[in-house]
């Protein structure tokens, strides 16, 4: 982030409300633009805060990012602004990609996106003539059925301009939650072990089986309660929920998440959770999801624990215990470990009852089989041993003041601030031809407007924490839905009106904020408040690869209450 803020000559921000969602990073961009003269192009249907200082603001129609990007790349190729030597030396598949882009002449793109042709030219020129340009994106890019393709198309743009692997360039995703990066790195994903080691790879399975004292599959007959490592890719959160109704999922262990608030189509989620056999929730507050939990175990807040978070630029940093645990709450890692020990104990006695042989048990002599950690630093030792990119990131080094960004394979490695400087992880960067696909849900006569969702500066996600912060509630105490003045006139709204917003799935009421932040035909709502959460309305159409729901586009009807 530092290199981007200091060295980028221009920024292209798409699908990120940077100053409200990543505020401190947002201010570094503000400074770069105001005091360093960096150029800024923002592509966002909404007039978000940062557009105020933008050199150019493109207000594309929601769900037309690919058309917009292809249009910009068409102009870059037309004008010969591409970085030919980078394309020749470091990339492949250029011709196929170019053929696709040539289907997006400015006039056509302008029709799809509603961005005037001259603005397309202006944007392409700013992005291409300032070297390097940094591309920044967030959920506005990924929360679409075409999320993954959006991201690929941004990579296309940066390869075309030779901005990959350069300080001040690159594609820079801004991670939402404080430790999303770490949760992914640590194997909190259905297809990979820690450090993205695939669950389908026999070598990886072998490695973890050895470390954790398990046997590999071929050694014995399958039994539902035998200890093997599964090489079958698991379900994503967006598949687990419906999986409950299909009878596939009988039980969930939810750690510090609030699907009732954060998942799409709340009514459906409630229905799913109501049907589950056993729901374990580990949380600091009785969240909206707690209503469906069979057991609620009190974890602790960041102020009560020691360990590490990994930020959006792969920087691993210490979290330090400042106060004792509240009441009888316990460390979250301790709770998980206790559950593990007890399940293992029960399972092995269960096996014995069934007179199964000893060998079904976990081999406790394996180096990392056991669960008796004395603290998180001991857990980190295990992470060091099994997670190559975290191999050299120890609490001791962090406590000694070292600043480490992964990959950091060994204890004498200084960490890696910028990825892909010389080579892409897979050798040459591959251009992917990508076509525009219209959004899953289109407005019609009954639901004529488009709703997009997101967060606001003063609140956080499902609002469990920020709704319990007094000052934040004083500034932003109830949900506001942004409505354009033109629509407000049509609907008969004034500054004090309440509106009802209805989608094909549900309906909410909230205070209207009449503002030109949103274009005509669009409303914007958040999901911080249970009584008017936008997720009552959103739908679960998923990106086929990333399985991310299309939060950013829901067809709705808006009425005055």
């Amino acid at each position, binding site marked *: 982030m530092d290199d981007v803020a200091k060295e980028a000559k221009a920024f292209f921000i798409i699908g990120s409300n940077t100053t409200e969602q990543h*505020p*401190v990073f947002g201010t570094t961009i503000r400074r770069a633009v105001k005091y360093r003269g960096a150029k800024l192009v923002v592509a966002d249907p909404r007039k978000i805060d940062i557009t105020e200082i933008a050199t150019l603001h493109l207000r594309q129609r929601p769900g037309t990012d690919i058309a917009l990007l292809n249009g910009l790349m068409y102009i870059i190729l037309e004008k010969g602004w591409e970085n030919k030597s980078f394309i020749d030396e470091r990339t492949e598949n250029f011709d196929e990609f170019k053929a696709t882009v040539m289907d997006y002449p400015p006039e056509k793109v302008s029709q799809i996106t509603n961005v005037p042709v001259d603005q397309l030219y202006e944007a392409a020129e700013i992005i291409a003539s300032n070297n390097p340009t940094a591309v920044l994106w967030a959920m506005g890019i990924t929360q679409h059925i075409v999320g993954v393709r959006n991201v690929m198309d941004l990579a296309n743009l940066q390869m075309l301009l030779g901005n990959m692997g350069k300080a001040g360039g690159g594609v820079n995703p801004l991670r939402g*939650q*404080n430790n*999303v990066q*770490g*949760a992914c790195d*640590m*194997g*909190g994903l259905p297809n990979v072990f*820690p450090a993205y080691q695939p*669950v389908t790879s026999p070598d990886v399975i072998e490695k973890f089986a050895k470390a954790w*004292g398990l046997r590999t599959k071929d050694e014995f007959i399958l039994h539902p309660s*035998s200890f093997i*490592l*599964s090489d*079958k890719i698991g379900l994503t*959160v967006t598949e*687990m929920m419906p999986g409950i109704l299909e009878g596939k*999922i*009988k039980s*969930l*262990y939810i750690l510090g*998440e609030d*699907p009732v608030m954060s998942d799409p189509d709340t009514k459906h989620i409630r229905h799913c959770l109501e049907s589950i056999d*056993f729901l374990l929730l580990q949380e600091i*507050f009785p969240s909206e999801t707690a209503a469906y939990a069979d*057991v*609620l*175990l*009190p974890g602790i807040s*960041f*102020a009560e624990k020691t360990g*590490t*978070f*990994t*930020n*959006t*630029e792969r920087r691993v940093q210490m*979290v*330090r215990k*400042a106060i004792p645990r509240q009441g*009888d*709450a316990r460390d*979250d890692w301790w709770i*998980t470990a206790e559950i*593990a020990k007890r*399940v293992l104990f*029960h*399972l092995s006695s269960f096996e014995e009852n069934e007179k199964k042989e000893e060998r079904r048990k976990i081999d406790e002599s394996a180096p990392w089989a056991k669960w008796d950690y004395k603290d*998180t630093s001991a*857990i980190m030792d295990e992470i060091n041993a099994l997670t190559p990119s*975290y191999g050299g990131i120890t609490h001791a080094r962090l406590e000694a003041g070292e600043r480490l960004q992964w990959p950091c394979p060994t204890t004498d490695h200084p960490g890696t601030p910028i990825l892909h400087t010389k080579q892409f992880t897979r050798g040459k960067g591959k251009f992917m031809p990508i076509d525009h696909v219209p959004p899953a849900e289109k407005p019609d006569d009954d639901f004529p407007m488009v709703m997009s969702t997101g967060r606001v*500066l003063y609140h956080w996600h499902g609002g*469990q924490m920020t709704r319990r912060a*007094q*000052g*934040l509630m004083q*500034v932003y105490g109830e949900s506001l839905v942004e409505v354009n003045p033109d629509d407000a006139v049509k609907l008969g709204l004034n500054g004090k009106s309440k509106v009802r917003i209805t989608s094909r799935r549900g309906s909410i009421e909230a205070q209207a904020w009449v503002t030109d932040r949103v274009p005509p035909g669009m409303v914007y709502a958040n999901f911080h408040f249970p009584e008017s959460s936008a997720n009552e309305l959103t739908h679960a159409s998923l990106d086929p690869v990333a*399985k991310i729901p299309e939060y950013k586009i829901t067809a709705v009807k808006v009425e005055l209450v």
Partner: protein
Amino acid sequence: MAVNIKINGQPIQAEAGKTVLQVAKEHDVHIPTLCYHKDLNPTGNCRMCIVEVKGGRFLQAACVTPIWEGMEIETSSEKVMKDRKLTLELMLANHPVDCMTCDVAGECELQDLAYEYQAKVPAWGAKGTRYKVDSDPNPFIRVDMNKCILCRRCESACAEIQGRNVWGVAKRGFEEVIVAGAGVPMLEARCESCGQCVAYCPTGALSNKMNYGMGRAHQVTKVTTTCSYCGVGCQFDLLVKNNKVIGVASNPNAPVNGMALCVKGRYGYDYIHHPDRVVKPRVRRYLLEERGKTKEDGGWDWIDVEWDVALNIVAKKFMEIRGNFGADSIGLLTSAKCLNEENYLMNKLARQVIGTNNIDHCARL
């Protein structure tokens, strides 16, 4: 290019273009400052850092005076010391002397300098308050312009760090005062409540409202940690008194953010001690009565239980479900709010113990 200068008689070689203050700092020569802050552009308006330059007609502000070849500087001559003391007395003349009850006593730079120079309030000074105390409705920031010394650090911090330009100066002379926007409440002047101006204010003119009166610098313990909200990963110090988090303070060594924080990071901490916190394991009554899952007859009531009871119920349930429906009938949602170490264990629990890859978190959401 290097130039030769003398500070207090000591010959020094330094790079041209540097200021007297910078060179003095590099050579451990103490020059007091007030309006100067290393993160902000120097304005040279408080006159605390004045030094005597040989041949100069006036005393010069070290923070804005560049060095030149052959320059000879005295940083603590009698003239300088007298002048600084007078400057302080003029400030104190116009400053309510309520250090006894002031929230920032102990970390107030004016107080420290007055102590260093033994400057007292002149007999003719400090005649009551000129401005309303706690004059702004902003829920986080307490404004008391009576304590303002017009150093303008707030103005620079808001403009240069936050890029927001909320603060400015109105009127001239004795009437000169710092105002938000055109003299409106801060939030109306488009303040984002980041608290940068508070962090840079050297006195109690701008302080924190949420913990006003709850603890002074020497009464709190500082624990450096990482923010629990967004992925930027700002670091800051939690201020702890009597085992309670009473505030957040910028830590200048924070790798990502330096002194900067946003409203959530700086002021969104009070959820930690909120009475809604779950502090005891809870299970539904039906689980204790060995009934099937039911909402009838109070079966769905929460019952507080000991850890052992709760954990055994959980383990037994997982084991039963795993036995009856297979490992893939269990799913784990790990947390983007929890530690790496905790996420790692969730991954290990899913894969080693349960035997499923059904693990995910809300990155997609």
